[in-house]
């Protein structure tokens, strides 16, 4: 029972990281119709930046600075190349970001090397906490709290601020937003940067529980993609829910039958899409009649 609880908790923590990554991914997909394959590498950059910074500035400052730096990288990518693919064949954006992701993974190898690093949890969050019903890692609890805070902040931003309203409007009708006087290119760059920050911050908080290596970008990208499709493209809570489902099912299945834990997200996605092509909470899909 205790063992099950700890697998379950690990799954929730994993799911919350997935959800933060997936939210950035779906935001970019929803507003720009770009399947952003650099999203995983932006996550990896967040982890590496944090790894390099923490020794000098500590956990909290790195938690702020590393994602912002990832946001700057995302901003540059969008301004220099990715914005050229908007409105064209969706394949262009996909291929371009795919190539960028491979190139950036090589850059990571050149700068930080091929080997993995382990990142220590901050000292105040080292060790475990007795929750009464179980004993659980302090850092993972902190991670879960931070992820929930980030998810709520993004929700508040999208739902309660005028800028969030413009972004939501842009996701349903970008041309109309522009015809009402909003600077669409600037808004798209901003959304790309926000999405990058989300990928980066997830990388920072995940670093202490995973070893930081060049391939973590690819490792996080596929689940993120599955989650966005499973939750329903463009659906905020759909992504959060699907993130938790994928996290928990991956983690708990290890306990019963470790070999299937890698394919379980795909099995769930396939099963859901068979009956609901729009995903769990998505808008009515073009695939449905």
């Amino acid at each position: 029972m205790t063992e099950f609880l700890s697998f379950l908790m690990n799954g929730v923590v994993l799911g919350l990281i997935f959800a933060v990554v997936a939210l950035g991914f779906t935001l970019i997909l929803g507003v720009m119709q770009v399947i952003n394959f650099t999203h995983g590498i932006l996550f990896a950059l967040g982890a590496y930046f944090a790894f390099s910074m923490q020794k000098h500035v500590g956990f909290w400052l790195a938690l702020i600075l590393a994602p912002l730096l990832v946001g700057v990288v995302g901003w540059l990518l969008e301004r220099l190349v990715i914005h050229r693919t908007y409105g064209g064949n969706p394949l262009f954006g996909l291929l371009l970001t795919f190539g960028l992701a491979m190139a950036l993974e090589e850059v990571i190898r050149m700068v930080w090397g091929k080997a993995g690093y382990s990142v220590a949890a901050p000292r105040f969050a080292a060790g475990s906490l007795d929750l009464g019903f179980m004993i659980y890692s302090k850092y993972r609890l902190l991670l879960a709290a931070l992820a929930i805070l980030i998810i709520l902040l993004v929700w508040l931003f999208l739902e309660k601020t005028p800028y969030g309203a413009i972004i939501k409007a842009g996701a349903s009708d970008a041309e109309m937003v522009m015809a009402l006087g909003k600077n669409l290119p600037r808004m798209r760059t901003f959304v790309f940067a926000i999405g990058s920050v989300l990928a980066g911050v997830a990388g920072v908080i995940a670093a202490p529980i995973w070893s930081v290596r060049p391939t973590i970008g690819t490792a996080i990208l596929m689940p993120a993609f599955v989650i966005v499709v499973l939750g329903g493209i463009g659906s905020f809570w759909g992504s959060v829910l699907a993130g938790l489902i994928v996290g928990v099912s991956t983690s708990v299945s290890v306990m019963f039958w470790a070999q299937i834990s890698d394919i379980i997200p795909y099995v769930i996605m396939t099963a859901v899409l068979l009956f609901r092509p729009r995903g769990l909470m998505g808008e009515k899909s073009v695939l449905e009649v």
Partner: protein
Amino acid sequence: MLVVEKMNTFYGDAHVLFDVSLEIREGEVVALLGRNGAGKTTTIRSIMGLTPPRTGRVIFKGENIATLPPYVIANRGVGFVPDNRRIFPTLTVRQNLELARKQGDGGKNGWTLEGIYEHFPALKEIEDRKGEVLSGGEQQMLTIARTLMGNPDLVLLDEPTEGLAPIMVMEVMKIIKELKEKGETILLVEQNSTLALGISQRAYILENGHVVYSGPAEDLIRNDEVKQKYLGI
């Protein structure tokens, strides 16, 4: 206010507008008529910069805006009311309105949210409703009100009565008439020529992307030959 000179617009390789020229003076309501596919909506999209003309000039308040992006054109004072309403479905009525607010001189009538609600009391009652649940008539009122929130100097109004129940058609025409009385400058694209001519000072007729008639609305009302030939009435 607006002078369009020899505008030529293409969709890809297809030439859609041929040397279209027209003029709208301040405070005027001008009707742009013609059959389906004559190029009326394309004319509006070209002025707005959404489908920019390949050649020709669009002079607005003395400056050529033909090559500017749509958001700059909008901020210069051109308001666009699209034909299929295009309300943002995930935003509330109030958010739809507030989104369209622009910084600037406030325009002729200085529309504010309060002013809009005073003028469209029905919108005030549904201000917390999401765009996706509104009826066709509510959406049409909102799309006009949304554009007014940006305090445009010129309103491009594309097929405002399309697909509405007869009672809503009369309601929308009443709104346009009131805007005219408030001194708004309007380019009105309409399929229903009789209604449009009833509130316009002047009219243009498009046929296959060419301007084939222009003149005072009163003259066109009495000119059965032209109406028969280009409008089918």
